[in-house]
């Protein structure tokens, strides 16, 4: 049941052991730590160490040249007054709360259509999956910048039917929408996961429902959704975590500025500007921790809410 399921199911095992087994255990123990050595070094120096360091830096003023200067909660107090930061939170929340549900909705819809042994399934699946592999690249962001430009592909097509479209990415009211659309475009990966999940639903449930004369809609609501709910949950959690960290698309489309008028200023983009543009590393670290707390909170809410709608078969 996926990484998430694993995490919630971890149990402690206790069983009496013979001397022979204890000896084997000791040998295993030594071998295990040797096998784990690279991972443990990485955990210490690349993950946990830097994490703690960034927590420390978030309470300092640090510009990379002078040593960090402890300023207590000043960075966080600054954040409360930083209206650009508030705006960037709004942009990010909009992106996540609009983009992820639409993306997953489309993914589920297409997965359902593809599921029922349709002819040409591998072909369709490839077509829908390909964009999700390319979507994170700079090249596609460049393409998007052109497509939604004033004289871009979208407006050229609209012109064919006599509509004069706006400059989608130069207009603050549509710029974020264009980037959300790019996120929706990458629905292929969750779609594949939905497809695999749908295959696991035993056919007998549907057969029984057919015997009882259930409609397609009833079968969808009463069988498909409950049995697919762990997969929906898994996709939801992972896509939300991922979407909060989106960066490349907004960076390229806006030329690194987060514009027009900060309408595509993602939280991560603002963090980058603060940390690596102005070398305000203390503030950037504080922002990173805020991001971690927000993502953690969303994940926690998801887990709590899951008790009410996610159905575990086993």
């Amino acid at each position, binding site marked *: 049941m996926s*990484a998430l399921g694993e*995490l919630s199911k971890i149990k*402690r095992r206790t069983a009496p052991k013979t001397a022979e087994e204890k000896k084997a*255990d000791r040998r*295993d123990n030594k*071998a295990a730590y040797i*096998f*784990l050595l*690279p*991972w443990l*070094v*990485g*955990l210490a120096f*690349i993950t946990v160490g*830097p*994490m703690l*360091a*960034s927590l420390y830096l978030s309470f300092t003023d640090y510009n*990379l040249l002078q040593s960090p200067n402890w300023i207590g909660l000043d960075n966080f107090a600054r954040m409360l007054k930083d209206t650009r930061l508030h705006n960037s939170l709004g942009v990010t929340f909009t992106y996540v709360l609009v983009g992820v549900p639409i993306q997953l909705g489309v993914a589920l819809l297409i997965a359902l*259509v593809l599921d*029922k*042994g349709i002819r040409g399934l591998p072909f*369709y*699946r*490839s077509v829908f*999956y390909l*964009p999700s*592999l*390319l979507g*994170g*690249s*700079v*090249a596609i962001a*460049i*393409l998007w910048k*052109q*497509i939604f*430009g004033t004289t*871009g592909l979208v407006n*050229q097509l609209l012109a*064919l039917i006599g509509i004069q479209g706006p400059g989608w990415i130069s207009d603050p009211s549509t710029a974020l929408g264009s980037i959300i659309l790019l996120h929706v475009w990458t629905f292929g990966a969750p779609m*594949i*996961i939905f497809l*695999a*999940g749908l295959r*696991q639903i035993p*056919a*007998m449930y549907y*057969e029984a429902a057919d015997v009882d004369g259930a409609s397609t809609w009833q079968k969808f609501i009463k069988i498909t959704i409950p049995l697919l709910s762990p997969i929906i949950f898994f996709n939801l959690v992972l896509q939300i*975590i991922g979407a*909060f960290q989106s960066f490349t698309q907004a*960076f*390229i489309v806006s*030329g690194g500025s987060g514009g027009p008028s900060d309408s595509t200023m993602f939280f991560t983009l603002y963090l980058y500007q603060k940390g690596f543009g102005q070398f305000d590393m203390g503030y*950037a*670290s504080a922002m*990173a*921790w805020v*991001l971690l707390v927000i993502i953690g909170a969303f994940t926690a809410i998801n887990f709590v809410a899951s008790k009410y709608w996610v159905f575990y*078969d086993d």
Partner: protein
Amino acid sequence: MTNLPTMSKETPASTAAPEAARKKRRVRESRGTLAFSRKARSRAFLKHVLLIISGSVMIYPLLWMVVSSLRPDDLIFKDPGLWLNTLDMSNYTDGWNALTHPFGHYMINSAIVVIGSILGNLISCSMAAYAFARLKFTASTVLFGVMLLTIMLPFHVVIVPQYVLFSQIGWVNTFWPLIVPKLLATDAFFVFLMVQFIRGIPKDLDEAARIDGAGHPRIFLRVILPLMVPALATTTIFTFIWTWNDFFGALIYLTDPDMFTVPVALRAFVDSQAGTSWGSLFAMSIVSLLPVFLIFLFGQRYLIKGIATTGIK
């Protein structure tokens, strides 16, 4: 949930149950089409219409980019169609030489980072996965939990101190900051993927090797690794695509044009062009997507299995 059908094909575990389920399913479908053949046929037709329309909308921008890169520059702003009158390769030759170095230089840089990352992930993640999946050790539960949590950790929370660390060792504008973390199994996603795979390999095989006097290194190298080739392939392919596309890391650590990887080179190209030569920009974008597309074409099986199994099992 039970074993995933697609997974059981590659694990030596029993394949009987999912096979039967699939057969049953096929029977159900064929029975269905016999009973309601007209209704079912029109429904299938509608589905194909829906799929073809939505698929075309998805792929159209990509095709249009390819076609536009083969057209004279000004047509990009005029011609939304896919029809090519002449084949104009000048965007490719112009774009290739538009930056400080020929574009091939950046592709070689990217290739170095990609190969280093793949080797790093394959070695370090498979070792960690063997320990998690097969060995009993102190604090294994806690460490496994920590490993799973790091999958979900946003990298922003470590990026500043990591940058400080690597810049103090003098690694800015080298490929090390992009490769070394992979040598240390920080892509925990792959550790998890491999743990799941190893768990599907029957333990009898390890036991047999152990009775023959093999130690853990031998069991790992001679028994487990050869059997987990599909998981290694999935890891290779995902690492390739993610590293090839990686922008943030390269943006931070590689500021010297000599060291640019493809994504940062493209970004430099966008900035320098200011929108004047979309044709050559498109051409180089396509060149940059080509390796990913080829990997997709030949490695699709592993990609789909990879994400399907991590999502389900």
